[in-house]
């Protein structure tokens, strides 16, 4: 690893000032569970490292019935996993976190860092996509809200500019009669997913699909939604046949990158299976919520 200058600002304001000063010459470290590997491999050699790991100002989980959920960027995966607020209102996030990487990584790694490193196989984005989540990105002059859908630009690249900081993740209130599930495929517990699918169904009073969301990870340079497949459900009674057909369409919407673990063709095939399974589980949960 190349040497760098280390700056640990005490507040968000100070962080934004420092980012504005150093811009392209600096990188932000939070938990560093991905960044340190990138630095060790010499893939990046920033002159300055801005450490926000201990910024308590961004370590929070808040919920209210109007605005929904707000998670500060430096909240650890483990805090999300164990949060009673999240278990009560957004249990799919707790389920996702319980199987994200390993206990060691969840204890130090942050939810904001996971999104910002923008590994397309990351576990955090697919369920957020299924819940229409947004993020708040700040610079010293103000802040903007961006959907998780528009957050990714390319492989390991996001819309966060050199003078900007992701400060918060927001998830709207989950409508009644909604079921959400996230399932992923990987070889052993602790591995990064090969592919992952999150499905959310909201049912209307007749039990048909009012709204469908399908978030997918590991099947494109960025996390994506299967928007064509989602439309197939809307207004329809969800049946096994419809799920089967929509899962095929979802699979066709992907453009996976082949890697050492799996070919593009394989990932395309497996994501269809996982969309199908997650859809069935989401439907069961939506029906349970409606009764």
């Amino acid at each position, binding site marked *: *690893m*190349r*040497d*760098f*200058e*280390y700056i*640990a600002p005490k507040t968000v304001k100070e962080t934004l000032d420092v980012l504005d000063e150093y811009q392209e010459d600096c990188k932000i*470290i939070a938990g*560093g*569970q991905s960044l*340190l*590997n990138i*630095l*060790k491999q010499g893939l990046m050699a920033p002159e300055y*490292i801005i*450490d926000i*790991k*201990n910024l308590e100002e961004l370590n929070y989980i808040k919920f209210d019935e109007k605005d929904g959920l707000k998670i500060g960027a430096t909240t650890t995966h*483990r805090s999300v996993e164990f949060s009673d607020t999240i278990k009560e209102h957004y249990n799919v996030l707790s389920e996702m976190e*319980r199987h994200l*990487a*390993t*206990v*060691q*990584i969840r*204890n*130090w790694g942050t939810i904001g860092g996971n999104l910002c490193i923008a590994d397309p196989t990351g576990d955090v984005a697919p369920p957020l996509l299924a819940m229409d989540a947004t993020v708040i990105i700040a610079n010293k002059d103000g802040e903007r809200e961006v959907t998780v859908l528009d957050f990714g630009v390319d492989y390991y690249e996001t819309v966060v500019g050199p003078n900007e900081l992701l400060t918060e993740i927001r998830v709207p209130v989950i409508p009644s009669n909604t079921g959400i599930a996230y399932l992923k495929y990987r070889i*052993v*517990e*602790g591995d990064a997913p090969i592919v992952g699918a999150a499905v959310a169904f909201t049912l209307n009073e007749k039990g048909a699909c009012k709204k469908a969301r399908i978030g997918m990870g590991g099947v494109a340079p960025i996390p994506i939604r299967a928007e064509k497949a989602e439309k197939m459900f809307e207004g329809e009674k969800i049946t096994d046949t419809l799920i089967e057909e929509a899962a095929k369409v979802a699979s066709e919407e992907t453009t996976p990158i082949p890697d050492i673990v799996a070919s593009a063709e394989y990932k395309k095939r497996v994501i269809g299976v996982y969309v199908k399974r997650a859809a069935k589980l989401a439907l069961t949960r939506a029906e349970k919520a409606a009764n």
Partner: protein
Amino acid sequence: MKKILNVTINGTPYEIAIKPKTTLVEVLRNELNLTGTKRSCNAGGCSSCSVLVDGKVVNSCSVLALQVDGKEVTTIEGIADGAKLHPLQQAFLEHGAYQCGYCTPGMIIAGKALLDENPNPTKQEVKEAIAGNLCRCTGYVRIVDAILATAKKLQEEAK
């Protein structure tokens, strides 16, 4: 330029001048000669370098040492009570829960983190708690048995 790190390790406060790029495992092994913590993959993939930071288990190879400034670190050297082994260390011995020993300190630390949070875990919970700790000699059966036996023993002692 070096920075000053103030950290408490196994109850002893230290003030150490380090380069900012130094990871926690490098401070432990190279600066303090606490070589019980093993550095293996050095990429967060094997958890052999597990230590506790403020009671939570982390991979010390994947923590920038300056990030633990002001915190308490516990390593494998810090869990025995003088010459009396920690119950987990004793159980690993009794169950023969090791071969080469390289994963053992990390396994014991991960086991301790689990039992501190959840004194009465199920077998599945033990397996999940050590899912990141790789053993390449043999398997995990005796390790899981040793952790479960410790939980049982500590529960009985607490009664």
